[in-house]
């Protein structure tokens, strides 16, 4: 089974703090994603990485950055946390959408971040 592990299930941070959310996958997937999930808004894409050191902005990249130094690890960084970044953050991985691969995403359990 594919396993996507997010390092922290629950975090509480203060405004202005730097926050690191870590995600590790064990299936050698090229593609990794970070989303935030908010009630009524669904999942909104923050960043997408299609390979090591490669990244693309999603719909809401402002206030976030990412790092993909190794294939299995994709980190989301909040340089200076703000209260409007309080949310559930979901990491996912997948093979690329090519050939017989449908590009199905496999999700981690999520990291619930509260910024005070």
């Amino acid at each position, binding site marked *: 089974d594919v396993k996507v592990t997010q390092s922290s299930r629950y975090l509480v941070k203060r405004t202005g703090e730097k926050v690191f959310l870590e995600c590790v996958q064990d299936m050698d997937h090229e593609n990794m*994603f970070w*989303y935030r999930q908010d009630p*009524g*808004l*669904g*999942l*909104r*894409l923050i960043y*997408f990485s*299609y390979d090591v050191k490669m990244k*693309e902005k*999603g*719909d809401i990249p402002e206030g976030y950055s990412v790092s993909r130094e190794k294939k299995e690890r994709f980190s989301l960084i909040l340089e200076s946390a703000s209260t409007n970044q309080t949310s559930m953050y*979901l990491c*996912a991985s*997948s093979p690329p*959408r090519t050939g017989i691969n*449908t*590009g*199905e*995403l496999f*999700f*981690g*359990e*999520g990291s619930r971040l509260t910024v005070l």
Partner: protein
Amino acid sequence: AQSVSQHNHHVILSEAASLELGCNYSYGGTVNLFWYVQYPGQHLQLLLKYFSGDPLVKGIKGFEAEFIKSKFSFNLRKPSVQWSDTAEYFCAVRRNDMRFGAGTRLTVKP
């Protein structure tokens, strides 16, 4: 702008009622289509997917979806819902990245 629209935010049904959840997308070109489900307190799970072939796809737990290319739609259906289907349902579209709709919360009354 590319988008995924789910028509209903909250649907309430009684057990044994039939279900149809709408999903439309605005992407051009070839896409793969998905429905995910999130049960209370759990992570997202794949219900079903479409990438080619028969536009009527069957998934787990008796769910099915029909891809209508001319309407850019991928509606989810189930003939008879159960209380255990209470969950949030997300439609998703993939070209390079994957974009999701806002979700539909389904409540099934026993």
